[in-house]
């Protein structure tokens, strides 16, 4: 028998975790934290997102849209992503990034259309190049990697930003995407919205890895955590990763630690698997109040502005509901019209059948 000895440790790694507010200290290396205009811009975007989510849940409850996934409590993640991206970058979202999508120019009426069961909701007027909502978990990581490969092959100084949930990091295709992104040092940033729950499966039962960020280490690029309820930190850390990718520095995985205050979707009942106490405790750290308190403390925000903002957001969302509900319904036969560039001959009879059954010809 020969005993083996440890000759060396070939690798030790570190996963930084950053925040601006609270424990962890200053995230921002730029002047973001003191830039009143930008802070207020992000605050407005978070409030608009929350207003949108609340309205969408109400519309679902009254049967005016279908199942909906609220981002309640996670507004800082999506808004931080949206604020960090340049207009020409490509957002490849999952289904909880309305905060980023709205900030990038997607109309709330388009999102209502989407959740209202109408494909036109993914035909954004702007931005034309962003990906639509992706429902199958994690599959968008492959698209984002392809987008980043296209940018690299064209030596285009744009960046692909892929948003994922914590649940998606359990998937093989997400790892395949990260692995290839690492091999080619692609201009891509993976942002994991770690809201602690994959529907009913808590974070601890999704992965034995101490952090999700460290999954990037295996793919050969940096991973770091950020306080996902701190929009200043999310914006700063994501922006740093995006600019590094833009400059040829390769991918980054940002794990934003947050909490899903709402059900997974309107079809879920989270009371079946988590306690009210747990959720109540997390409300104390929710991101909108946190930034508002900061703005108020700094003398940048007051009751009047708050009241005005709430009214503005309510008006924007009400107008979006009106726009959504006043769209003429899709012609039934239109289900055939974007399937292929040109409808193959063999489809004509099926299309005619739909038209004959009362679907107006588009």
């Amino acid at each position, binding site marked *: 028998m020969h005993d083996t000895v440890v000759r060396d440790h070939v690798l030790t790694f570190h996963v930084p975790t950053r925040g601006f507010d609270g424990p962890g200290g200053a995230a921002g290396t730029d002047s973001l934290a003191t830039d009143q205009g930008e802070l207020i811009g992000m605050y407005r975007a978070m409030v608009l997102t929350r207003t949108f989510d609340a309205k969408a849940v109400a519309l679902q409850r009254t049967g005016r849209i279908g199942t909906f996934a609220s981002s309640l409590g996670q507004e800082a993640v999506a808004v931080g992503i949206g604020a960090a991206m340049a207009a020409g970058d490509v957002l490849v979202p999952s289904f909880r990034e309305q905060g980023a999508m709205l900030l990038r120019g997607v109309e709330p009426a388009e999102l209502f259309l989407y959740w209202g069961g109408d494909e036109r909701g*993914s035909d954004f007027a702007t931005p034309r190049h962003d990906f639509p909502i992706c429902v199958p978990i994690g599959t968008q990581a*492959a698209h984002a990697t392809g987008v*980043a*490969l296209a940018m690299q092959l064209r030596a285009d100084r744009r960046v692909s930003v892929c948003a994922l949930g914590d649940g998606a990091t359990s998937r093989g295709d997400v790892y395949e995407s990260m692995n290839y992104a690492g091999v080619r040092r692609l201009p891509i940033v993976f942002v994991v919205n770690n809201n602690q729950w994959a529907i009913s499966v808590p974070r601890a039962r999704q992965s034995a890895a101490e952090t999700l960020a460290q999954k990037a280490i295996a793919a050969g690029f940096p991973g770091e955590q950020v306080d996902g309820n701190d929009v200043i930190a999310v914006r700063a850390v994501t922006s740093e990763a995006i600019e590094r990718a833009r400059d040829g520095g390769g991918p980054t995985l940002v794990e934003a630690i947050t909490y899903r205050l709402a059900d997974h979707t309107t079809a879920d009942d989270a009371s079946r698997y988590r306690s009210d106490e747990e959720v109540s405790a997390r409300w104390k750290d929710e991101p909108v109040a946190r930034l508002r308190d900061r703005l108020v403390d700094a003398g940048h925000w007051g009751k009047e502005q708050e009241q005005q903002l709430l009214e503005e957001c309510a008006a924007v969302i009400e107008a979006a509901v009106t726009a959504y509900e006043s769209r003429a319904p899709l012609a039934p036969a239109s289900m055939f019209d974007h399937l292929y560039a040109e409808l193959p001959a063999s489809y004509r009879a099926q299309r005619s059948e739909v038209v004959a059954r009362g679907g107006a010809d588009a």
Partner: protein
Amino acid sequence: MPEQLTLVDAVRTAIARAMEDDDNVIVLGEDVGAIGGVFRATDGLSSRFGTDRVLDTPISESLFVGLAVGLAAEGFRPIVEYQFMGFLYPGLDQLANHAGRMRNRTRGRLTCPIVVRAPYGGGVRAPEHHSESFEAMLAHIPGIRVVIPSSPAKAYGLLLAAIRDPDPVVFLEPKRLYRSSREDVVDDGASLPLDRCDTLRTGDDLTLVTWGASTLETLAAADRLAADGIDADVIDVVTIKPLDMTTILASVERTGRCVIVHEAPRTGGVGAEIAAVLADEGLTSLLAPVGRVTGYDTVIPMFGLEPHYQPTEQRVLDVARRALEFA
């Protein structure tokens, strides 16, 4: 000048032509670069067009189709090679959930002009999982095309059409035919039409419908029947999805008898769809039940038993005679 090419040569020639014509055409997959692919279908392309247009990838079969979806959204026309159809199963998720519906779900804002190539079918004494024929699963996916060439000239013209097509195409290459014969192919950049059957020979007594490598046994059976004075239409379906039933129905209207030959398992096969449409739209033409000669509903055996699984000339003849004798 026409050149005598094998089917795999024709695939390579078509890809090179498309890459020459359009900088957006790129090739990616496992081992497609330095060694030119396991069947050499991309041999020489890497040195000719560079490693930025012929990309060797890690073994990531769940990734490839999705990667192509992203590339296509940014204006590329990627050609993805799967080494064998048996390894395309992980790609079904991306084909069905994304490639086939991107145009529809964004109302044409984003489109997906990609080609997914895979050698398919048995008959080359390959290891397990290397002989699959699951074209019927692919044919069930809306928004994509499934194209199967049966000769070098068709491989050239159809692959060019697939690469130029504005929608996703799965291009299945019958590996048994890769080097089985040569034929004159003119590298003139001319494509062949998709979505259309090709009639390989004509006759008024019987319609034989097939595709891919089974065209060999089907044509051989037709020759044997011809020696007995029986003339068969032999139809190469070519595009499995969308299916050109017009050509098949017109043939059966003349012959009244039809036998479908395919290597894939019988139940739920593309032959079942063809038979269903014949029952639905061609019933008054039919003089006999529609026959099928197919692989069995088993796992395709390892190559020891493969000859008992694949449609043979004799099996085609037996079922054809049954259809001919039915009164």
